[in-house]
Structure formats: structure tokens, C-alpha cells
């Protein structure tokens, strides 16, 4: 059981950081929300990968199976996914309003407009 060892975590961290980078480095409001999604999906992966048991199956009880993967991370992530989609939809709604109010969804252009109201 040497492979994948800790490699799974590191790959996921790589994904997470790409998502995080998109959120903070990009000025486009939609792109930021996309980045947030990528970031969150990777965090979900981090949880799920913790719950995996070698040789286990999905945690649905059946006869003849003794090893199950851990159901708790699954439950937590189900909740987190729902929270994620709620955040996304609110964020997108705000983006639409911002576009109507400013005519732009680029962060630096918004800043310019706000400086001379």
C-alpha cells in the first residue's frame, strides 16, 4: 500500500491552489465565481479521499460485504455542495445586478467608476 500514499492529497492541493489563484488573481466577476467553484470542488475531494477505505465499497449495507468506506465525509460534503450552489447562485445574481448598474463586470473598471461617482 505504498501507492498512492500521500500523493492523492498533493494532487488535490494542486487543484485547490489553481482555484484559489483564479479567485484572487482574476478581475472578472464571473471568473472569480468559477474559481471559487473549482476551489470548493477540490476541498470536497480532499474530504472524500479521507473517507476511502482500501478494498471498501460504497456505504450501502448489503450482505457479504464487510468493508465500507466512511460515510461521514460523504454526508458533510453533500451539505457543503448544497451550500456551494447556494453561494454560487447568489453570487451570480449579484453579478447580473452589478452589470446592470455599472455596465461592466471587470473589477478594475468598477473601481474606476466608484472613484468618480
Amino acid at each position, binding site marked *: 500500500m505504498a501507492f498512492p500514499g500521500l500523493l492523492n492529497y498533493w494532487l488535490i492541493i494542486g487543484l485547490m491552489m489553481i482555484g484559489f*489563484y483564479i479567485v484572487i488573481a*482574476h478581475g472578472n466577476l*464571473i471568473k472569480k465565481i468559477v474559481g471559487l467553484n473549482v476551489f470548493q470542488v477540490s476541498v470536497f475531494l480532499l474530504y472524500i479521499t479521507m473517507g*476511502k477505505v482500501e478494498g471498501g465499497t460504497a456505504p*450501502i449495507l448489503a450482505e457479504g460485504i464487510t*468493508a465500507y468506506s*466512511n460515510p461521514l465525509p460523504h454526508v*458533510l460534503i453533500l451539505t457543503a455542495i448544497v451550500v456551494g450552489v447556494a453561494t454560487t447562485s447568489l453570487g451570480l445574481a449579484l453579478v447580473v*445586478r452589478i452589470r446592470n448598474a455599472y455596465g461592466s463586470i*471587470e473589477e478594475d473598471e468598477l473601481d474606476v467608476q466608484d472613484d468618480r461617482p
Partner: protein
Amino acid sequence: MGMIAIAIARIHNLFAVVMLTGIFSLLGAAAYVIMDAVDVAFTEAAVGAGISTVLMLGTLALTTSEEKPSPKKNVVGALIVVTITGAVLIYGTLDMPHYGDPLAPVHQHVADRYIGQSGTEVGLPNVVTSVLASYRGYDTLGETYVIFIAAIGVLAILGRVRFPRRREEDIAEDDAQKTPDETARETGA
């Protein structure tokens, strides 16, 4: 998935970005299946690849589908922040149990009871459902309210008829003159 994530970061056409995000979610769902999280995979496929993508497309239709190349000012700062965060994360994983290790603390402490007892305590074969709705049912209640907030929040932010601030009498008058159709629109669609 890494390729797609990088592509999402690089591409400026938001339409392509949204499509790639959908694919990213689907791949995530596939990864969940590999790691035995079938319920999560189901949800991710329905939400991440379905609803989120549809909403983002809707937003694109209402705004614009081209990202303007941003001035390169915050790239270095962002890279520093991301590198530090990533380094702390990797530092944290060094003492984590290896992938699939059945002796990991995660599987020892509370999970045992869920798998061992939920069949008799709750009586459902799907342990995820048992934990979701019964053992940790309160979290799920919170989650339902989160969705509720999202729905009425979107209604509040984007609801169709938005009239300027007016005196109350005017609004009362308006209400009196409004046709049923208008009222319905104002409240929902």
C-alpha cells in the same frame, strides 16, 4: 482535472470557461465514484454539472461572455499567497494517514458506529441517508435553510419589477391598479 483547471484559469472566453467548469464537475463526480461516494457523485453531477452550469450560462446571457485580459498587477501577490497557502496545506498532509488506510483515525472513532449500528438503530441500508437524515439531521436542516435563503435571496436581488423608492401612498395606489398578471410577476418570475 488539472489540465482543465489550468485551462479555466487561462481561457478568456467565459462561455468556454463555463463549459469547462461543467466538465470539471463531472470529472469530480467520477472521482467521487472511484472513492465510493456514490451519493456525493450523484449530487455533484446534478448540481455542479447541471444547475450551476445552467445558471452560469444564464448569467452570461445577461452580461457578457468575454473576459478582458486583466492588468498584470496582482499576479505576483496572488502567486505568493497561493504558494504560502499550498505550502501550509502540504505541510499539514505530511502527518496524515495514507490513502485508503483502514486504520486512519477517521475510520476508528465515530464511523464505526454508523456502519455497525445504523442497520439496527435506524434500519436503512443506505448509511449515508441514515447519517444525513438522522444522526446529523440537524446539519441537513441547516442545509435546507441555506437553499431557502438562496432562493429568496435571488428573488430579492433579481426579482423582475424593481421600482424606485416612492412614498407609500403611491405604492398603495399602484397595487390597486395592478392587474393580477403584474402582481404575479412582481412576486416571483
